[in-house]
């Protein structure tokens, strides 16, 4: 019998006989009885301590959002993507997206994919649960699961089936390019076009399916398999396959970069590469006040009907005279034209989520030596430093974003920096200043209004401005009743006032 039986004894894990034996030992062993008495005191302190270290309640909307981010991260990571951008980033608050749920068939266990229109340029598009269509001249980039698809003039794609790892599309007409994440053996990405089936074995390619029939497939990276009844072709990177409606197929070696694939998949304005490409100003876009600019997808429903009448004839791609180029979406994160080398920010985000913060920070630090004005890189560097626990460096990176970024970027950076300052010795006054800046800026971080007040109240309390802290909590309780923030606010109000 010895002292190490104490824990199973206290835990009630000993059989009655062994427990009785141990109690005999206990009555004789002074060190055991002293330690048990000491532990009981310590246990009380530990319980109080752990009560204080309890995370705030998590609203169900947060769980919903987090689960979507996790699924997107997983898809992106599994595909070891090269150019596909994960637009559901870790701090997705600032990104603009339209979520459509695509349902694969009618099985009861339906799997859903998040389709996100991430960039749009030119005329307009028609979007429904399973169809993406560009109406007239224009361009549309959408993310379907881990795959990115770019649609050209008048192109229309129907999603026939979508579930995890499997995507089946039908190109009804027009020109599409796809940046598909690498796929496992059990995954399938199939594009139907007329009698042809294009099966993806690799990553970047484009498919053209003119109304007259036929098919043209160009492969930039990876491999693609094309089948028609009784025939099969494998197309490797750098090659194109052209098939007439009835004519003989030709397989040709391409030279140089494929401008068409780049054009369709580039989330940036096109004037650098394609001076002839620009938006068609339709009466509808003028009416919607988006003349010459990227149309906001969210507003499309309102003038979708009007656009149907303006659908352009299948004009040749480059026949329009040059005109000012449309502007990219202001919040499009991939448009990092700072002149520095290309960096795979999406891949870095995934690596961050997988805990490789130190490596990512090194890559970004090197990148920033070449491109010190890349706000995206500074923002991501801040996250990487934060995840490594180096709050000081993270805050410095946020300061660069505050100085150089757009208003939403700077606001987000202020918030993140203030959250870290709160946890640093002597950081509270500056945290208070940042939070107060955010509260005084009209329209800043609309989704985080209660949170900003909650955090500000904690910082104010820490520096002794108790009455102001309680005032903020009261404001939360009044303005956002029945929310998790209000629940926390009730718990944090000091008992001495009110």
């Amino acid at each position: 019998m010895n002292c190490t039986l104490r824990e199973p004894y206290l835990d009630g894990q000993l059989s009655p006989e062994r427990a009785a034996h141990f109690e005999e030992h206990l009555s004789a062993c002074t060190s055991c009885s002293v330690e048990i008495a000491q532990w009981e005191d310590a246990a009380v302190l530990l319980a109080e301590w752990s009560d204080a270290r309890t995370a705030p309640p998590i609203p169900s909307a947060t769980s919903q959002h987090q689960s979507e981010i996790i699924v997107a991260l997983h898809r992106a990571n599994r595909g070891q993507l090269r150019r596909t951008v994960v637009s559901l980033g870790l701090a997705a608050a600032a990104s603009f997206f339209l979520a459509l749920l695509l349902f694969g068939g009618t099985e009861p266990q339906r799997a859903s994919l998040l389709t996100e229109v991430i960039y749009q340029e030119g005329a307009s598009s028609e979007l429904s649960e399973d169809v993406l269509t560009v109406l007239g001249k224009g361009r549309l980039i959408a993310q379907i699961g881990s795959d990115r698809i770019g649609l050209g003039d008048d192109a229309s794609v129907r999603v026939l089936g979508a579930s995890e790892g499997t995507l089946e599309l039908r190109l009804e007409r027009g020109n599409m390019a796809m940046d598909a994440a690498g796929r496992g053996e059990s995954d399938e990405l199939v594009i139907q076009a007329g009698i042809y089936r294009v099966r993806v074995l690799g990553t970047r390619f484009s498919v053209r399916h003119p109304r007259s029939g036929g098919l043209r497939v160009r492969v930039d990276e990876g491999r693609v398999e094309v089948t028609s009844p009784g025939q099969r072709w494998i197309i490797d990177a750098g090659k194109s396959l052209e098939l007439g409606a009835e004519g003989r197929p030709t397989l040709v070696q391409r030279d140089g970069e494929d401008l068409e694939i780049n054009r369709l998949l580039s989330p940036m304005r096109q004037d650098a590469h394609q001076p002839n490409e620009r938006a068609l100003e339709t009466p509808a876009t003028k009416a919607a006040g988006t003349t010459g600019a990227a149309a906001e997808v969210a507003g499309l429903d309102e003038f979708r009907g009007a656009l149907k009448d303006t659908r352009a004839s299948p004009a040749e791609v480059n026949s329009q005279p040059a005109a000012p180029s449309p502007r990219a979406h202001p919040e499009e994160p991939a448009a990092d034209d700072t002149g520095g080398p290309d960096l795979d920010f999406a891949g870095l985000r995934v690596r961050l989520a997988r805990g490789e913060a130190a490596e990512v920070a090194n890559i970004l630090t090197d990148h920033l030596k070449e491109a010190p004005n890349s706000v995206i890189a500074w923002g991501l560097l801040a996250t990487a430093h934060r995840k490594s626990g180096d709050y000081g460096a993270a805050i410095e990176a946020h300061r660069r974003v505050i100085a150089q970024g757009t208003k939403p970027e700077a606001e987000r950076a202020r918030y993140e920096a203030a959250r870290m300052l709160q946890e640093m010795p002597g950081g509270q006054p500056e945290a208070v200043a940042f939070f107060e800046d955010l509260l005084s800026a009209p329209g800043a971080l609309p989704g985080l209004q209660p949170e900003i007040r909650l955090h500000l109240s904690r910082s104010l309390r820490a520096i002794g401005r108790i009455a102001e802290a309680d005032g903020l909590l009261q404001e939360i309780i009044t303005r956002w009743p029945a929310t998790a923030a209000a629940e926390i606010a009730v718990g944090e109000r000091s008992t001495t006032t009110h």
Partner: protein
Amino acid sequence: MTEMKGDKMQGAPVLRDISDAGLMASLAAGDTAALAVLHQRYARMICSLTLRLDPQGGLQHAEDLTQEVFLTLYESAGRYRDEGKLKSWLCGITAQKTRSARRRRAVRSGLMRVNRSINPGHSSSYSAPVDERLSARSDVTEALLSLSDKQREVLVLHSIEGLSGAEIAEALNIKTSAVWVRLHRARKTMAAALADTRPGRAGR
């Protein structure tokens, strides 16, 4: 233990009532709606556990780790076998992730600032949480930091999270006897440290 029982799970009214094992099976079959329900059920517990296992980390750090834990849960749903409680399984993943995050941070802060002590017994500059509720029990924080990671894991899982010896053994993939040994040492150290600090605490 279900957190936020009263909360409405939007869009998944039926899933809310399904057992953990049922949700894991749905998730393995590709129904990602189950993930949101599991998140609602366990994210707060995991986030709190991280705050306790890593007393130097802040809330943001805990939220990041919680996301990593759920990414792992999602990716291993197909391998989950309904043998033990999901909670123990999640505690095991959380402990493992917290430990490696602490290690990464120690290595990094050692590299970045040679003169900063990486002895976990001294709180480093970024760590001390200023939130009053958290700093009030800094004696306990110091005492916990004087334990080894392994001892702290067992103590927190047992004395705070309420897992049994057998559940901890399963979560950490160690023998039950090893749980008792670690717990014994951890309690002894904690009791001694807190008895020392309480009468006339010297402060830091």
